[in-house]
C-alpha cells in the first residue's frame, strides 16, 4: 500500500542519516588499496578502481595489451620508477563488470607488505589515490552493483573474525539472506493484496480470501520472522566471538585455568591472593571461533584502593560478557559459602550462560569434595552447570573448552545456515514482527481492513528498507494478477 509510498518513508529516514553519507570531491578519483589482509601470506592482492584504472596501471604493468580483455589475467613483470618490482598476475575488469561497477584492475603479487606497499606507492605516483576504508563497497552500492544487505555482508565479511562467521557472511553475500527477506516481502505483499482487493473492489463480486486463510498465513509468517530473529544471538557470536568472564575467590585458580587454556604464561600466577588486580584479556581461538577470556580480580572485599578498582572492573566485565565462569577451589574448606554467594550473584544471568568450575580436583584424592559439590550444586539448582578440573595438571581442560563452545555447536539455524548479524536487520525484523502481531490481532477481532493494511504496509516498508528498495505498486499489480475484476 501506500505507501506506496508509503514509498518515501524509508527514504525520509535516510535524511536523518544523510550526514554520514557524503559525496566527497574525491569520488571521481581512481582509488587503490591492498585487498587482502596485511601480513604474511602467499599472495597479496592490490585493487585499483575508477575511471582511469587501466590508464594508471599501464606504466607499471607494461606487458598489458593495448586492448585489455575483461576478466582475463595477464602475467608479467611489474616496473616501478626505479626498476622491476615483482612478477605478478594482473586482471582487468571492464566498467560495469567489476565489483564496484567501475573500471578495475587487480594485481596479485607475492605476499608480505613490502611488495604490495611498493606497488601501491607506484600506483599513487601514477595518479591513484589510496582508498578510504569501505570505499570500494560504497562505490559498489552507489553504482547499484550490490544492495544494502550485500553491502553490509561485505562489511561483515571484512570484520568477521571467525571461520564460521566468514562463511555466514559469504552466504549473505550470495543473496541467501536477501532471499529470506524476499520471502517475507512476498508474504506481506500477498496479504496486503488480499486486504486491499477486499477494500477497493468490494463491489466487484470478487471472492476474498477468508479471514482464516489470511490469519494462517500471517501466523506462519510471524513464526518465520521470529525464527530468523532468533538466529541473531548466534550470528553475533559467530562474527564477534565469545567473551568469557572468569570470576571466583582469589587464589581459586582462575589465572591457572586461563593459562591452561592459553597454554602460555600470560596471566601472572602467584600464591598471593589478590594478585590479579587488573583485568587480563587473552584471546584464543577455539575451533576457529575467537574467545576472549577476561580474568577478573576476585570479588572479595578489597583492602586497598587498587584492589577496589579491580573489583569494580570485574563487575563491569562480568556484565558485558557472554559467559560467566565461576572458579572455585575445591580444597578450600570454605568453598560452600562462596558457591552459594556466586549462584545468588549470578541470578541475573541466564542459567545457560553460567558455569561453575571446581578447580584443584587433584587435591581431592578421595573424591569426597566432588560428591559434596555435586550435591550442593543440585541443591542450588545448577547441577547441570558444574565442571571439575585441575588447571595445573591439565585435567578436565578439554571438557571445559567443549562446554564453553557448546552453544555455538547447537544447530539453532532454522534458516538453512543463515543467521542475522547486523543490528540494522534485527531492528527491522523486530519492527516487522510487531506490525505483524498487531495485524494478527486486528484480523482476529475482525477490525477495519484499512487498519490491517496500515500494519502490513508499514511492515512492507521495513522489509524494503532492509532490502534497500522502494515499493512499486506491487500490491495493486498483485490484485490484478489474482482477481477477476471489472465494473
Amino acid at each position, binding site marked *: 500500500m501506500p505507501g506506496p509510498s508509503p514509498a518515501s518513508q524509508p527514504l525520509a529516514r535516510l535524511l536523518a542519516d544523510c550526514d554520514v553519507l*557524503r559525496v566527497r570531491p574525491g569520488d571521481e578519483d581512481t582509488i587503490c588499496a591492498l585487498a587482502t589482509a596485511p601480513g604474511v601470506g602467499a599472495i597479496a592482492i592490490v585493487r585499483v578502481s575508477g575511471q582511469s584504472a587501466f590508464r594508471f596501471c599501464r606504466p607499471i604493468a607494461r606487458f598489458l595489451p593495448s586492448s585489455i580483455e575483461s576478466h582475463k589475467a595477464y602475467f608479467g613483470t611489474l616496473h616501478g620508477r626505479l626498476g622491476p618490482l615483482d612478477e605478478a598476475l594482473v586482471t582487468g575488469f571492464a566498467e560495469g563488470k567489476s565489483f564496484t561497477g567501475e573500471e578495475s584492475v587487480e594485481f596479485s603479487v607475492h605476499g608480505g607488505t613490502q611488495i604490495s606497499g611498493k606497488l601501491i606507492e607506484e600506483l599513487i605516483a601514477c595518479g591513484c589515490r589510496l582508498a*578510504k576504508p569501505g570505499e570500494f563497497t560504497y562505490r559498489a552500492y552507489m553504482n*547499484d552493483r550490490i544492495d544494502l544487505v550485500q553491502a553490509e555482508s561485505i*562489511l561483515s565479511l571484512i570484520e568477521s573474525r571467525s571461520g564460521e562467521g566468514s562463511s555466514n557472511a559469504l552466504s549473505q553475500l550470495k543473496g541467501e539472506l536477501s532471499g529470506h527477506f524476499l520471502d517475507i516481502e512476498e508474504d506481506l505483499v500477498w496479504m496486503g493484496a488480499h486486504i486491499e482487493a477486499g477494500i477497493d473492489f468490494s463491489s466487484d463480486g470478487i471472492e476474498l480470501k477468508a479471514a482464516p486463510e489470511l490469519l494462517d498465513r500471517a501466523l506462519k509468517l510471524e513464526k518465520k520472522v521470529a525464527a530468523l530473529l532468533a538466529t541473531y544471538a548466534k550470528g553475533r557470536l559467530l562474527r564477534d566471538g565469545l567473551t568469557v568472564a572468569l570470576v571466583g575467590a582469589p587464589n581459586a585458580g582462575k589465572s591457572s585455568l586461563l593459562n591452561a587454556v592459553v597454554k602460555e604464561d600470560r596471566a601472572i600466577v602467584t600464591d598471593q591472593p589478590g594478585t590479579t588486580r587488573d583485568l587480563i584479556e587473552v584471546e584464543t581461538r577455539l575451533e576457529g571461533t575467537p574467545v576472549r577470556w577476561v580474568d577478573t580480580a576476585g570479588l572479595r572485599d578489597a583492602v586497598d584502593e587498587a584492589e577496589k578498582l579491580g573489583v569494580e572492573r570485574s563487575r563491569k566485565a562480568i556484565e558485558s560478557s557472554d559467559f560467566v565462569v565461576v572458579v572455585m577451589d575445591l580444597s578450600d574448606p570454605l568453598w560452600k559459602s562462596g558457591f552459594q554467594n556466586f549462584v545468588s550473584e549470578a541470578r541475573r544471568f541466564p542459567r545457560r550462560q553460567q558455569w561453575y568450575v571446581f578447580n584443584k580436583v587433584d587435591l581431592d584424592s578421595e573424591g569426597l569434595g566432588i560428591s559434596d559439590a555435586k550435591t550442593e550444586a543440585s541443591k542450588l539448582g545448577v547441577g547441570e552447570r558444574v565442571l571439575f578440573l585441575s588447571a595445573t595438571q591439565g585435567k578436565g581442560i578439554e571438557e571445559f573448552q567443549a562446554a564453553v563452545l557448546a552453544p555455538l555447536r547447537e544447530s539453532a539455524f532454522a534458516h538453512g545456515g543463515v543467521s542475522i548479524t547486523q543490528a540494522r536487520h534485527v531492528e527491522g525484523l523486530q519492527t516487522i514482527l510487531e506490525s505483524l502481531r498487531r495485524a494478527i490481532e486486528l484480523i482476529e477481532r475482525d477490525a477495519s481492513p*484499512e487498519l490491517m493494511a496500515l500494519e502490513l504496509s508499514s511492515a512492507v516498508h521495513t522489509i524494503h528498507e532492509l532490502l534497500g*528498495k522502494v515499493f512499486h505498486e506491487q500490491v495493486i499489480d498483485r490484485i490484478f494478477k489474482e482477481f*477477476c*475484476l471489472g465494473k
Partner: protein
Amino acid sequence: MSASSSFDVIVVGAGHAGVEASLASARLGARTVMITSNLSRIGYMSCNPSIGGLAKGHMVREIDVLGGEMGLAADATCIQFKRLNSKKGPAVRGSRAQCDKDLYIDRMTKVVHATENLTVIGSEAKELILEHGRCVGIRLEDGSDIRAKSVVLTTGTFMRGVMHIGLKQIEGGRVGDKATIGISDQLRQHGFQVQRLKTGTPARLRAGSIDFSKTVEQRGDDRFYPFSSRSDKALALPQISCWLSHTNERTHDVIRANLDKSPMFTGNIEGRGPRYCPSIEDKITRFVEKISHQTFLEPEGLSTDSIYLQGISTSLPEDVQLEFLRTIDGLENVEVLKYGYAVEYDFVEPTQIRHSLETRSIPGLFLAGQINGTSGYEEAAAQGFVAGVNSVRSARGEESFILGRDEAYIGVLIDDLVTKGTKEPYRMFTSRAEHRLFLREDNTLERLWNRATELGILGQEQASRLEAILVQQTSLREQMRSSVLVPNAETQSRLESLGTAKLLKPTTIEELLRRHEVCFEDLANFGPFGGFDVSVTEPIEIDVKYAGYIDRERLLMASNRKLEDYKLRRDLDYSKVRGLSKEEQEKLGEKQPETLGQASRISGVNPSAVQALIVHLKASKEAQRGEFEPGPKRKEWRRSAVTVDHDSSRSSEIEGLGSSFV
C-alpha cells in the same frame, strides 16, 4: 464570431474535465471560452450512470469543497445512493450516486450557460496556435482563431478515436461524435510522446424487454450523505432499484466460440485497456476457472427505458452480443438499444506535464482528463478543476495550485500521473493513497478548507456556511474534552442501558466515545451533544475512535513531508550527480521533479538515486558554505581496517578469500 477574438482561457471539450475547468476558470474571474463540437452533451455520462464510488467519492467531495460542480450535480440528479464499504473501516467508505443521465446534462448545461465570464462555442477545435513556443490559442474548423493566454485540452477519447465493434472500425470518440485528428498530430510533431489506450462500454438494453423477476433487486441505502455540504440534505428525485444477474457457461461458450471476431484478440486493437475493467471476453479468457460473472442492470434515468449492463463491456460483433446476452437470466428476450464497443484513442504520456497540469514543452498549454491517460468521470473532473485554476493562475503570473499527496486524493492522482505515468487507463483506488486514514470522505472539509479559501472560488455565502461547520466541530471537540462524567447512579444506569460498562472514575465524554460500543449519537444522553448533522459529528467520532492510528499516520506524513521540502532546481544537471544510472539521469532530467519527494516517486528512480541526490544536495550546499569535510563518516567504514571486495559473480574466489580470515 469574429475572425479572431480574445479570452484569458480556452477550454477545449465539455466533458467532466472540460466543465470543471471552464467553471473554475470563469469563477475565478477569467474570461473563459468553452469549445465543444456537441452542445447537447455538456457533462455527458458516456459510460456508466453513476458518480462516485470507492476513492472516487473522495475526489467528488474534494472538488466540491474547493468550489467545483460535480458533487452538486450528482446530489441533485441522484436516483440511487449507496455508501460503499459502509461496514468496513471509516477511511475506505465511498459514496456513489447513480444519476439520471439526462437530468445531469440538463443541469450542467444550465450551470455552464448561466456562469458569468463563460462563453460556449459549438465548433471543432482543429489546431493549436503556437507562437514563440507558447500556446496562444485555438484555430476552429471554420478557420477562425480564438486567442487566449492559456489553453486547456480536455479531449477525452476523441483524439484519433477509433471505435471497434467486432472487426468493424469507425472513426469517432464515442457513438454519435466524430474524432479529432489534427491536435494529436500537432502534439506529436512537437515531440510529445503520444500513445494509444483502449476502453470499452457495455450494451444498453431496453428495460421493457427484460424479465426482472429472474434477477435480484438491489436497493439503495436508506440514508443519503450528499456529496456537497451546499446541497439539500434530502434527495430531490424518486429512488430506483438496480438488478443483479449473472453470466453462465452458455454465455461463456458463445463468447469463446466467437473470439476470432473480437478486435481484442485479432490484434486490431493496439492500445492497452484497463485491468480493473476488462471486457467480458477478457474475463473469460484470463480467469478460465470462473464459470459465472456478475452483472448489474442499472437504469440510466427516470424517464428513459435504457439499462446499463455493468460488468459486461464488450467489442464483439452485434449478432454475437445479442446471442450471448440472451443466455443471461432475465435477458432471454432482451432488445438492445445500443451495442457495446471498444474505443481506442490517443493519450499524452502524462509524465510530460507538470503538477500544475501545464505541459513542460509548450507553456500555456494544459491537459486534463483522459488525454492524460486516466479513466473515470471523477478523475477527469478533478484534473479539469486543477487545470482550470492553474490556467488562470498561469495567465496571471501567479503560483500554481498544487495539492499534496497528504492533502487530497486529487493530489495523489496528479502526482502519480506526473511522476509515474501510466500504462493503462488510470483509475483511483484507496490503496494508491499512502495516507488513507487521513484522506477520508468525512473530513474533506477540514483537510481542504485552507486550500479552498486560498483559492477563493466559493462565494461568500457558501464559504460562511462551510466555515460554520468547522466552527461547530471545534467547539464540539473542546466540549467533549472538558465535559467530565462522574460515576453517579444516574450516569451508571444510562451507561448500562446503552450496553456499556459502568464508570470506575470520572471520565470525559471524549474518553467515553473511545469505547467500541458507544457511538456519537449515544452522547446525547450525557450532555448537549444531540441534534448535530452527521457531517459535523462523523469526523469527530472517527478522529476519537481511531486516534492512535491517525496519530501514526500524522507522524508518517511529517516524515514524508521532509522529502518534499528538499527542492530540486529545474536546471540541476543530473549528469553531474554521482551515483545515478544513465537511465536515472535521463528520467530526472526529462521530468524535472520539483522536490526530492517527487523524484523518489518517478518509476525507475531507485532509492540509491534518492540517496545520491541527498548526498549531492548536501555536498554542494556544504561546498558553498565551505564546511565540507571530506572523509567517510559511516561507522562501518571506520571499523574496517582492510577493504576486501570482489566481483560477486566470482564466488569461488571469495570462498578462498574468506578462508584467509580464519
